[in-house]
């Protein structure tokens, strides 16, 4: 079954010039390998076709259970000169979370983020 990335991970978009930087952070540690397997740089480039004109590079951050996508020529010449309504590309994080991910289990679409986030297990 397929689920939107929205239910597995969260994201924040940042910008530097004409480059958009999208984080993708697993809510649950066990989903991180799935993100690594399915959310490739090519998959993100295909998803954001028409918005991102340049190369997409992916960084893996296993200690944070996170991926980082650096998308070049993504902001229609850049924040200070773009004619787009969202010149920073702040909303591109939401476009990324629209990606559909193949899952072998159903997931609770209401995610207990805070409970997870306050469990003092990681990195200790």
């Amino acid at each position, binding site marked *: 079954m397929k689920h939107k990335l*929205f*239910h597995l991970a*969260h*994201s*924040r978009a*940042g*910008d*530097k*010039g*004409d*480059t958009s*930087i999208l*984080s993708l*952070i697993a*809510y649950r540690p066990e989903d991180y390998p799935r993100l690594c397997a399915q959310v490739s740089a090519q998959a993100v480039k295909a998803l954001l076709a*028409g*918005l991102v004109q340049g190369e997409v590079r992916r*960084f893996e*951050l296993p*200690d*944070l259970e*996170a991926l*980082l996508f*650096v998308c070049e020529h993504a902001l229609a010449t*850049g*924040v*200070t*000169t773009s*004619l*787009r*309504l*969202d010149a920073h590309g702040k*909303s*591109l994080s*939401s*476009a990324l979370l*629209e990606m559909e991910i193949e899952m072998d289990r159903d997931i609770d679409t*209401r*995610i207990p*983020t*805070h409970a*997870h*986030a*306050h*469990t*003092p297990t*990681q*990195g*200790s």
Partner: protein
Amino acid sequence: MKPILRIGSGAGFSGDRLEPAVALAEHGALDYLVLECLAERTIALAQLRRVADPAAGFDPLLVRRLRPLLPFIKARGLRLVTNMGAANPLAAARRVVELARELGTPVRVAAVTGDEVLELLDPAQPTLETGQPLAHYPQLVSANAYLGVEALLPALASDAQVIISGRVADPSLFLAPVVHHFGWSLDDHERLGQGTVMGHLLECAGQLTGGYYADPGVKDVPGLAWLGFPWADVDAEGGMELGKIPASGGIISLATVKEQLLYEVTDPAAYVTPDVVADFCGVRLRATGPDRVRVEGGRGSPRSSTLKVSVGYRAGFVGEGEMSYGGHNCVARGRLAGEIVRERLAGEFAQLQVDLLGVSSLHGEERGAQSRPYEVRLRVAGRAEDAARAARVGEEVEALYTNGPAGGGGARKSVVEQVGIVSCLLPRDRVRTGVEMFGP
């Protein structure tokens, strides 16, 4: 020496809320309060104001932001560090001295100078964004080097309670008090790397405490209307714990810290600042209590021999017009309206951005085509070299009232001058920084 230094983040951009910094100053038991108020473009816009008025060019909110904070400098033994000097740190320092005198709580102010480097640049120098030489951008208005900790240290060593700079790399504003307090060497890149993680986490203030994070039902954040801003408790080894005032809104969790840690980072193994090339890849987070997260594992390697320079240039004017359509067939009427304006302006603008808000304005046509909104808003934008030509966009959208599709309403138009930003590099040794003292 205090074994733990507490650095608070009181503003994350020039337009940030005012009262969270006041709460931190009053109840946060801070040693330093840092106010980061300069975006890439802010300083170029400030420079334009300074050209019009030599006593202007600092952050327009300087007085409003500092007025409620200055009394706590004495009452709480607090020092303020801010880049609100923007294009004119000297004038900003004079204004703060004057304000403090009015309030009956005199302060010593140090202004950090040397970031203005326009006259040092070579027009043949390539820009980092496009590789084209600076001369390609004919109307340069400002060039500011990103200064680092080194430029702030003499000011911190003085008796100033308020330190005002222009362009300083955001994380350096937070790192400098730590380097000063613990006497870290500027060659100690491991500690500087970890300290840069701290500065990077704090530099956007509320973005660490649940601001810009909330998504109802999935990522709920309590008290966003009264979001508390964060602090970091840092020890002599660079060990750090993040926290905020318990009664304030927002949350600090592993998730909020991860989002901010990766924010605007183009290479997590090489986050370049004037102080260090920081490596975030080994950063580990541990929740140590409600709204408390320990951060470890930031590293670094030696700083670059160059400083990044942000160059502002006049990029013409953008004209915009908007009009709304509602009810059945509103998307078709909005599209028709856009086509009409496009046809009318085809001879005047090489490029027009035509969007339907509610359908295609953020992520383009294909993604929005699935939805059938009850209302849409046409937005047209175009760039021109002068304001009068840019205004044509709004005029044509407004004229849809009597000439366009049925039921258009709520027309708005605007013309805004644009300042573009490009970057280049400058050898570090060509930049001369200084400190000037003001006040009693």
